[in-house]
């Protein structure tokens, strides 16, 4: 008996491990820098973790609030609920706690919530009206895979360092304005010039780490999008439906005026397609991979499927 199921994507697993490893190195380097400079790192760590815990536990409510998504009951949206329940059964996930709809014609969807039990899945009216049933199903399966892969947890915790570095950058900026590096333990035995150098090193180091970790997190986020695409194809058994949905959504994206896009800015990280227009650095600094690359991968999956390779 042959199990015809998707093998894992080794390349993706490798890239993800590499990114996570790099992120760990950046963390260690950052901690080392703070420790060396005698900065009260513990205080900053507690603060950043505190903020993350808050974000983590409030993610479902916060995102619903900022996007203006309204929860809908099975009576209001029987089809949507039924489709999600069937996909959840397929993926062996509990039914998401909340299913919501955003009243905008931008076709998009997102998932959030700290764990599968508290997951929220939201879609826009535009998604439901512009995509056909199979495509909507594929998008929902993509979002459910985000839930299954615990992407909120992974990205929240990966972002602690960005919060820390950002916070420290601000702190240093204000301190340099008011001319004091406080009573840092290091300044006393060595001269004042030395303290200035230490401060400069911390400043530069923090900026480097801020951007390095930001880049790594963006890369991680893009890999997780690929993983969610793959998961959606596994759940629905139809990679091309997702490809066609992505095509439609991304085409529409360019026709939508900026004003509408700005409204959806906050929940961007977990949207199926990046709702913000990027500039030239879009690829490196984007939380979503380009749609063409995603479609290319889905087509590869379809080919594997036809060969019976998965």
């Amino acid at each position, binding site marked *: 008996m042959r199990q015809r199921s998707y093998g894992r994507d080794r390349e993706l697993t490798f890239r993800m491990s590499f990114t996570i490893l790099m992120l760990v190195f950046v963390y260690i380097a950052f901690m080392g820098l703070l420790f060396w400079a005698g900065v009260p790192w513990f205080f900053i760590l507690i603060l950043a973790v505190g903020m993350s815990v808050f974000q983590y536990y409030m993610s479902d409510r916060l995102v619903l609030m900022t996007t203006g998504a309204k929860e809908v009951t099975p009576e209001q949206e029987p089809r949507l609920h039924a489709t999600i329940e069937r996909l959840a059964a397929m993926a062996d996930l509990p039914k998401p706690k909340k299913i919501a709809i955003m009243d905008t014609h931008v076709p998009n969807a997102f998932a959030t919530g700290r764990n599968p039990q508290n997951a929220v899945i939201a879609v826009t009216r535009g998604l439901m009206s512009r995509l056909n049933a199979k495509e909507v199903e594929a998008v929902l399966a993509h979002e459910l895979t985000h839930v299954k*892969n615990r992407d909120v947890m992974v990205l929240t915790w990966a972002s602690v360092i960005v919060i820390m570095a950002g916070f420290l950058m601000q702190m240093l900026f204000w301190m340099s304005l008011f001319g004091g590096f406080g009573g840092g333990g290091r300044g006393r035995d060595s001269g004042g010039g030395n303290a200035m150098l230490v401060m400069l090193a911390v400043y530069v180091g923090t900026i480097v780490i801020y951007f390095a970790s930001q880049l790594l997190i963006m890369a991680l986020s893009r890999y997780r999008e690929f993983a969610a695409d793959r998961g959606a194809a596994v759940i629905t058994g139809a990679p091309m439906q997702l490809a066609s949905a992505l095509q439609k959504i991304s085409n529409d994206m360019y026709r939508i005026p900026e004003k509408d896009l700005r409204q959806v800015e906050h929940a961007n990280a977990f949207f199926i397609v990046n709702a913000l227009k990027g500039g030239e650095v879009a690829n490196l600094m984007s939380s979503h991979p380009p749609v063409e690359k995603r479609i290319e991968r889905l087509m590869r999956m379809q080919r594997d499927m036809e060969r019976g390779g998965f």
Partner: protein
Amino acid sequence: MGILSALFGRSKLKRPSREQFFVIATTAVSLSARTDLNVTNFAGVVFNPVESSFFAELQNEMDALLDAGQAAAGTKFEVKDDGFGTRWVILDDPDFEDLVTTIHIVGETITEHGFGDRLIAAVLRFDFEGKAAYWIYNIKRGKFYPLVLSGRSQRDNAAEMRLGALMEQEKVPVEPNLENWYALWGIPF
């Protein structure tokens, strides 16, 4: 799925767990003494088809098998796609054992072709206090749970809780997590 699979975003569907399903065959006998809960002629298997030529091949073979079953045991069948991307094999036979056997054959055929992870549930229709009630066997979890509908998109949760308790009495393995009691809207029988 383990925490590592989640961390690296690997997707794999759970394989079917079929052992617990046969509990149902013995349950039916003890149910015949009851007046409030009765078996009916209807049952079905629901799965998520794959868009590939391998799956089309499987569908042909399954149709042939079901045709043979119809000729031999008189189990009528129908294959129907619903609006949620899933496919039903609907079975109709007054002999409960034949129903259970045919469900098993459908599941086996799909699994033998390597598509076992596409199976969602086996559904048996019952008559519960004069209402249509379903026992749903979640093939991935290997557990049963009840589904009683009132109206087109509402569930009769009270009746479901009672039916669930009753199923437990009959030694049926009932799904302990209520959030895994997925509805199946639009069951076509």
